[in-house]
């Protein structure tokens, strides 16, 4: 890749559908998911468990289980169409220009190999250089992610490091081949709060420094607010709302986004006030009805919500949502909550 302007789109996903084969026929796990990430930009995909955010990330990396298959209009990564790539073509991209950070640093490093082996492996595999070069880069990156005595730590095994340090190793590993895109799936959920703050800060710094595109998958709106440039809110396999972070937090439109934000403790004064709740629970894939995916939990639902599937509507340049209600009505419902 040649150097590219800051606004260059690194990943452009259009209408990604993931299906899971089951005994009762294929179930749709994500439905027409579309988003873009540009160089130097952080996109947060936020949603509760079962909303399809992890499935989406695995689909992008080609890591879906065998029972799943993908149909998409396009998945363009830095000029390459990912759809239809063979396994070996895909594996030349994976780990090199597109890498992934998993949720649990306790289990995402192989317990029987040293940190150094695991860091060097990806570098050598992608033909970036020999073992010595890999070692030097590993030391440089470990130091960069704040691990002291990096050269010595290369011979450590994962169980000799704390959770926070392991996640730093994972981050360093993701950076080994100088990727354009990093997908981080709940990277700090398994960490303690004080460690989480530092790890996120580090991730943000590195992103700016290396000009990375970052997809941050999370359930935590606090992380979204402090990290993301843009947000896609997912519910039951659909992107129900997408906007810049500022815009989304200022005027969320979709009733689900609004509900999610009101649920967070701390938006009210401490003490007696009740938290807002969304009644019911996330539907399982078999329970999804035609029409709006949120209709059975939505306070504003009307009969028409159960009709045909809802299209994504653009309200502003970078703000779109999937609801049939007039924008003004939705906006005022947020202001009056």
């Amino acid at each position, binding site marked *: 890749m040649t150097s590219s302007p800051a606004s260059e789109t690194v990943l452009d996903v259009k209408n990604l559908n993931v299906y899971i084969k089951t005994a009762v026929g294929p179930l749709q796990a994500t439905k027409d998911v579309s988003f873009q990430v540009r160089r130097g930009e952080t996109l947060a995909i936020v949603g509760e468990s079962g909303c399809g955010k992890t499935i989406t990330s695995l689909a992008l990396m080609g890591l879906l289980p065998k029972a799943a298959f993908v149909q998409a209009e396009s998945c363009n990564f830095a000029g390459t169409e990912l759809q239809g790539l063979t396994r070996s073509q895909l594996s030349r991209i994976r780990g090199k220009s597109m890498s992934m950070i998993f949720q649990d640093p306790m289990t995402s490093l192989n317990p029987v190999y040293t940190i150094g082996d695991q860091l060097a492996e990806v570098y050598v595999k992608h033909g970036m250089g020999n073992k010595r070069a890999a070692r030097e880069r590993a030391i440089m990156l470990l130091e960069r992610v704040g691990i002291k005595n990096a050269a010595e730590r290369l011979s450590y095994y994962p169980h000799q490091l704390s959770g926070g340090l392991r996640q730093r190793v994972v981050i360093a590993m993701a950076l080994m081949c100088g990727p354009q895109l990093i997908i981080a799936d709940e990277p700090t959920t398994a960490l303690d709060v004080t460690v989480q703050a530092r790890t996120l800060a580090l991730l943000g710094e590195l992103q700016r420094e290396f000009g990375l595109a970052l997809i941050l998958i999370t359930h935590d709106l606090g992380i979204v607010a402090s990290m993301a440039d843009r947000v896609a809110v997912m519910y039951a396999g659909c992107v129900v709302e997408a906007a810049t972070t500022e815009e989304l937090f200022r005027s969320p439109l979709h009733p689900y986004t609004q509900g999610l934000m009101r649920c967070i403790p701390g938006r009210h004064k401490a003490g007696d006030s009740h938290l807002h709740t969304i009644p*019911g*629970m996330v539907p399982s894939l078999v*329970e999804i009805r035609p029409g709006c995916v949120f209709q059975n939990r939505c306070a504003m639902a009307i009969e028409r919500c159960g009709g045909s599937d809802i299209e994504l509507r653009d309200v502003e340049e970078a703000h779109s949502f999937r609801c049939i209600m007039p924008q003004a009505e939705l906006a005022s419902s947020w202001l009056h909550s």
Partner: protein
Amino acid sequence: MASAPTATNTQEMDYPSPWQNAWERSKTHIGLQIGFSIVLLAALAAIFAPLIAPADPYAQSLTSRLLPAVWQPNGSWDHILGTDAYGRDVLSRLLYGTQVTMIVGFGAAVVSGIVGSVLGILGGYFGGKVDAVVIFLINVKLAMPGVLIALSLVSIFGGSLISITVILALLFWDRFAVVARTATQQVCANEYIAAAECVGASRTWIIFREILPNIANQIIIIGSLEMAIAILVEAALSFLGLGIQPPTPSWGILVSEARAFMFLKPHLIVIPGMAIFILVIGINLLGDGIRDVTAPQGRN
């Protein structure tokens, strides 16, 4: 009363119990059905052997030695599977042999299952020194050459049905102990055990009402495997002459007696051998099937 919002209004379905689920799943589980049929057939054969056997399994007849089976030249329906070297009816001996096989196999599995599970649950639940003792016992058991110990014990205590059953039980308790111990440890890590302790439940209550129902299906599965192995080992001991004693018709003895004629009358060793093989497969299928249909199901 607190006015909590109702948690759900979406689900209008009934909740089937685990047994109903298992029953539904077993209707489509072919392996389970085949295994169950084989074991049921063997059990029926064992119970009704006196009624269905065409002849006395011990009645020797010098005039009708080594008669061919019905499908062979000169075969007759009088002796469907022919006769052995002493002129005894092979089908009758096979049917009576089912009794020996089933009693020894089932008995050994039950006795070893009880001993092993008790040790395993105690070790897993109490931990500490109790557990250390249980682990040590398992290690000692594993270190002893099982078949040779069994042979020695048979030579000391004789080859009666009871002694063979007990000796085989001594051979097989360790697997139950290992599985029960691990399963108990896993169950005890669950918060419902702590919750039961917090309501003041006694240890007996916790072991029998909380732990046992949750590890029972694993024990039953090991039971089926061990029953199969016990049947194989009984046959092997009897084959060596240090198991069930002739003329009692154990399947192992049938093979051993037919060995001298294996080149002349191969069906005499093929039939009892296949009987063991099929029954053991049936028990394995049954055990695997039980595991499949009783495995806990997730929500979706």
